[in-house]
């Protein structure tokens, strides 16, 4: 009986659905082709087939990828985390300060470890408070994390006395700028975090419940899932990936800046959306977010490479966001999904 239910239009819709879900890949591909042609015609040089460019783009993409990973988890569950940018800044200044202070008396290695541990531990506080506000006190995620955006921002500036904290720990700067077998350390660390989050999301109960909460929170509660605990953990993880991002930023620029993540907040949300997640929750993947972040990084780096006024970056990224949401909507209209009642 099942085969009888599939008619031709349904099949056609199926193909279209696959195309649409691959839209992020298609975007990235088209973007690379355009930049390559542009680069060849205007400057007679390659854009894509240059190890330097590939390395630069991948380093460029690390910051939005890491911030986007936590954001992906939160958005799949139907929430949003506006505080990640300044949580990242808080981690950046704490990592710098603690690595300096502890390093001065206990040595470079201990200083590095202390800086990392202190920064990550510090990020867990805003993450935990976000989780409590949203899971226990039922504050809307947009409002709760907007409040935390302000709190983390102020805390980061106060901690840094209103300026940036220069780093004198060479191990920390190696984390940010070093290479192992030609691969930047920041990229290696980002890949490890990516694999961890991917495993968490696609193979564990925690990941399954993240999707379930985003799909139907009430049903997940009725099924006996501890929705509160999962939600609190989600926001703590989001803060934690922002913390890793902050540490790498401090290493890369040899200074902890409170505003390290400020321009990255919207990039992180954009990466998740371009990657195919719905802001209504229930969908999204780690792979999608990575492609989304790569698209943003290619646009930003590529336009600089092609000597275009930097302000065009904002316009280009903005257009990509709008177009990808439009494609998503038309997929829903044409595809198998149910319509709004």
């Amino acid at each position, binding site marked *: *009986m*099942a*085969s009888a*239910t*599939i008619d031709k239009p349904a099949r056609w819709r199926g193909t279209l659905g696959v195309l649409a879900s691959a839209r992020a890949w298609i975007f990235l591909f088209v973007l690379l082709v355009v930049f390559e042609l542009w680069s060849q015609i205007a400057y007679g040089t390659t854009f894509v087939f240059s190890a330097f460019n590939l390395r630069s783009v991948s380093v460029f993409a690390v910051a939005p990828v890491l911030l986007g990973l936590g954001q992906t988890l939160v958005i799949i569950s139907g929430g949003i985390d506006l505080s990640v940018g300044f949580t990242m800044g808080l981690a950046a200044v704490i990592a710098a300060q603690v690595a300096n202070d502890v390093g001065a008396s206990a040595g470079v290695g201990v200083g590095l470890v202390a800086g990392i541990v202190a920064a990550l531990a510090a990020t867990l506080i805003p993450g935990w408070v976000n989780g409590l506000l949203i899971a226990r006190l039922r504050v809307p995620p947009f409002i709760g994390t907007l409040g935390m955006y302000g709190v983390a921002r102020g805390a980061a500036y106060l901690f840094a006395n209103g300026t940036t904290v220069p780093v004198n720990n060479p191990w920390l700067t190696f984390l940010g700028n070093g290479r192992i077998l030609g691969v930047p350390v920041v990229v290696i660390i980002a890949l490890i975090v990516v694999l961890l989050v991917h*495993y968490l999301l696609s*193979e*564990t*109960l925690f990941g*399954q419940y993240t*999707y*379930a909460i*985003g*799909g*139907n929170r*009430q*049903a*997940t509660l*009725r*099924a*006996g*899932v501890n929705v509160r605990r999962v939600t609190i953990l989600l926001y703590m993880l989001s803060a934690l990936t922002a913390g890793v991002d902050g540490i790498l930023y401090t290493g890369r620029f040899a200074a902890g800046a409170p505003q390290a993540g400020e321009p990255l907040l919207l990039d992180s949300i954009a990466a998740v959306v371009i990657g195919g997640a719905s802001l209504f929750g*229930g*969908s999204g993947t780690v792979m999608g977010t990575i492609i989304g972040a790569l698209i943003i990084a290619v646009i930003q780096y590529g336009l600089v490479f092609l000597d275009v006024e930097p302000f065009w970056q904002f316009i280009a990224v903005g257009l990509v966001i709008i177009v990808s949401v439009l494609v998503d909507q038309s997929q829903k209209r044409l595809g*198998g*999904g*149910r319509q709004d009642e």
Partner: protein
Amino acid sequence: MSDVASDAPVLETYGISKRFGGVHALERVNFTLRAGEVVALAGDNGAGKSTFTKIISGVFQPSEGEIRYRGRRVSFDGPQAARTQGIETIYQDLALADNLDIGGNVFLGRELKTKFLFLPRIDRRRMREEAAKAIAVLDVHLDRLDRPVRALSGGQRQAVAIGRAIHWDARVLIMDEPTAALGVPEQRKVMDLIRSLKTKGIGVIFISHNLADMFAVSDRIVVLRRGVVAGERMVGDADPEEIVRLMVGQ
């Protein structure tokens, strides 16, 4: 159809009353449900149908009276307690996570696990297969199991919700307006589902506004009016007009 039902009641209530402040929502309701029996609860809005089913399913505690389930006196301190004992409610909104596949829904909160090397992981394949078996019992077959249940028809989605209940050994199913918001062919499918529940010895409490549905599928109709049992008829001996008279109290 009553020959399918065994004589042993699976669920009985004696003198159940419920008051909210000064409001008497239910007054001394006696009710019996046998295994394999479908009992329709009829009544106007505010007659107490929903209060009564919420008491059976552990959402409310009765102010007075007792519930006997499978021969023993029980009291549920919450819906989870009733569910683990085998009293399941199929909600109107179906309580499905639309974005998960049928395996994810049938096993939500009780996922099957396996290992990849040393890492624990969810066993999606086995969950799908088991879920497919659970709904095959209801004579519903899907060609693709890996799609989110959003892609299923209304009747198929009902089957997933019911299949989940049966898979976890429900003995009593409370179905609140299961045919509302469905097209006619899908309504028929749901009626078939209810009939197949009878043959599995599951007791069904069926709430509906649709008299035709009640007569089509139930063995007995219990009419509530203003919190009391206004009447009770075997479907074979009743006619719709009489049920309506009991409902409105003339």
